[in-house]
């Protein structure tokens, strides 16, 4: 074993091929060790690949951070009973969480790392059909993925008897049609079955009752694109980056009021202070006001949180979540109630409507916030919003409703006075009149 050494501030693994000319082409990928991990994987027993991924500590990169190897291990195997059903791998490439912009560049620049990861994963869980569900608006990714899949078929990495192993796999690249909710894994499965993308009640979980009610693994793009590197490097190599419980490298997407927004791949656990240094600091030196560690569904952080380690444990301990490491930076010129209103409008639009608390709650939250930002807030609004959030959180099938409450409750936690000042600066408005306006508007 190598002695523990501190890794470099940036550790390009997933992004290491992005600068190569025509990085998306199979020739480039193969020159840069592409498909060697697949050759190695096909020589072993699938269970040992699952064990490797368990040992590596890889956790899902789509937001929830669930241990990937454990998820694969839940797939029933065997010639009889539930293990006898066909098994499926579904890639969640429906990137759309506000602030998140890592999977789209990955698929555009290095689609073969995802294809190779899909083949290894399918072999490990014994799936013969894999669907890559790409957000419809990400058209150029769809082209790149489709081309990569065609190239892989032509080289014998896909299809029947892959590289003489006896293993068969087909991959279909599937375009979504514009619905944020389809990034939720069970909504994605319903959508892939040709239905409205609405979440399912869990349990049963996809591992036993997923696509076509069969055992299914649903994983994020970045998760599966990490698999070939783990096969090539081993679990100890992977664990040389990040922390004990959050190992490996991660693409941090820095956006907003910084000098150099972009994609920065660093070991898990980097802090915002370090990221800001890499990204050239705050734009024009205007001070930081608030930020999201992992998309708008993760509770806001402020300048107090510059030194929070951005890994799964660190973000949670500080009262937020790592999410998708979509670091959106807002300087002190930005109104918190306004930003929260914009995000809430988003959740209201994207609520699928299945669960009443989320559907109705986001609707009323938008009404309150829009009225408040328009200068007609009342003193009761802050408490009313917290009450509505309390009635949404944990009361719907999926995490969209929970996510919708995050910006509001965290904003009120850190910026309550700003809400109160905004309300105080405006003339009070009578509730009955507002209600008359609202019912008039919807009639």
């Amino acid at each position, binding site marked *: 074993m190598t002695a523990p050494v501190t890794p*470099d501030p940036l550790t390009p693994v997933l992004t290491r091929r992005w600068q190569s000319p025509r990085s998306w082409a199979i020739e480039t990928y193969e020159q840069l060790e592409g498909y060697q991990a697949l050759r190695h994987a096909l020589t072993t027993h699938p269970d040992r690949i699952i064990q490797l991924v368990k040992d590596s500590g890889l956790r899902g990169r789509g937001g929830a951070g669930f241990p990937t190897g454990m998820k694969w291990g839940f797939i029933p195997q065997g010639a009889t009973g539930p293990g006898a059903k066909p098994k499926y791998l579904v890639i969640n490439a429906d990137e759309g969480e506000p602030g998140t912009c890592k999977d789209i560049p990955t698929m555009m620049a290095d689609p073969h790392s995802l294809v190779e990861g899909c083949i290894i994963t399918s072999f490990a869980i014994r799936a013969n059909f894999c669907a890559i569900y790409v957000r419809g608006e990400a058209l150029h990714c769809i082209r790149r993925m489709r081309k990569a899949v065609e190239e892989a078929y032509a080289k014998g990495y896909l299809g029947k008897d892959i590289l003489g192993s006896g293993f068969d796999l087909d991959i279909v690249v599937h375009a979504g049609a514009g619905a944020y909710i389809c990034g939720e894994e069970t909504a994605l499965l319903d959508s892939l079955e*040709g239905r409205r993308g609405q979440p399912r009640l869990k349990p049963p979980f996809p591992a036993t009752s997923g696509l076509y009610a069969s055992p299914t693994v649903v994983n994020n793009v970045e998760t599966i694109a990490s698999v070939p590197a783990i096969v090539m490097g081993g679990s100890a190599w992977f664990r040389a980056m990040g922390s004990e419980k959050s190992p490996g490298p991660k693409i941090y997407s820095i*956006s907003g009021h910084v000098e150099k927004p972009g994609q920065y791949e660093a070991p898990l656990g980097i802090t915002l202070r370090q990221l800001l240094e890499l990204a050239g600091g705050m734009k024009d030196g205007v001070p930081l006001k608030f930020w999201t560690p992992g998309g708008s569904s993760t509770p806001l952080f402020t300048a107090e949180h510059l030194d929070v380690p951005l890994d799964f444990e660190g973000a949670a301990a500080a009262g937020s979540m790592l999410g998708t490491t979509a670091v959106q930076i807002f300087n002190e010129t930005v109104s918190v109630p306004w930003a929260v209103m914009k995000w809430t409008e988003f959740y209201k639009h994207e609520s699928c409507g299945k669960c009443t608390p989320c559907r109705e709650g986001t609707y009323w939250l938008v009404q309150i916030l829009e009225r408040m930002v328009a200068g007609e807030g009342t003193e009761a609004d802050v408490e009313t919003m917290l009450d509505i959030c309390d009635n949404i959180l944990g009361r719907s099938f999926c995490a969209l409703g929970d996510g919708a409450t995050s910006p509001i409750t965290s904003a009120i936690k850190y910026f309550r006075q700003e809400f109160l000042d905004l309300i105080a600066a405006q003339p009070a408005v009578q509730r009955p009149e507002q209600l008359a306006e609202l019912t008039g508007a919807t009639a």
Partner: protein
Amino acid sequence: MSDEIFDEVTRQRTKEIISRYPQSRSALLPLLHLVQSVEGHVSQDGIRYCAEALELSTAEVSAVATFYTMYKRRPCGEHLVSVCTNTLCAVLGGDDIYARLKEKLGVGHEETAGEPGSPGSITLEHAECLAACDLGPVLQVNYEYYDNQTVESAEQLVEALQRGEKPAPTRGAPLTDFKTVELELSGIFPDLERSVEGPSTAVETMRGAQLASERGWLAPAMPDSPPAFPDLPEKS
């Protein structure tokens, strides 16, 4: 009736799409993109066509078509212009861009300036996060990315589209039109060799990788050859 609208080529493509999936209904989203590529929107005829192809009721297909924002229920312009107005893009200028384009085109959300389908006609919409936040404010024309926009650049872009020009996207394939990209979204790529090209990585995309190479930062070295897979734990 739908026989006249959806020709033999479309019928062949329909079969090809359905054959890709273990169960035929999975082809519904692609088929809705396909009928949209023919008509420029999802019409009642399009819904009937999908229902017949998949042996579903028109109610089942309608329920799906109305759920997803990319299926347009009214005829669209030659181009679809989508402006991100989610929080981060809005802060950086997305709201101003959308307001200016609305004013300039004299239309609102999902409305079309010009005769739908005619050259230079434009359907405008505000979009939710387009997953290009490091490049905000962004907009898309027919789902090709135009990054780091300003009110002025967006205005010039729209003027060029109205004149019949096709300015190159920042990231994506050379610009075509709404119907052509809808065909690709259905999974049919008549010219993938060409459309797969085009720029895809912006300066921002590469910033981390670039900084790492300038400073000589690397991930820890991998072993010379892939290590053996771990043994399985003894089962009790």
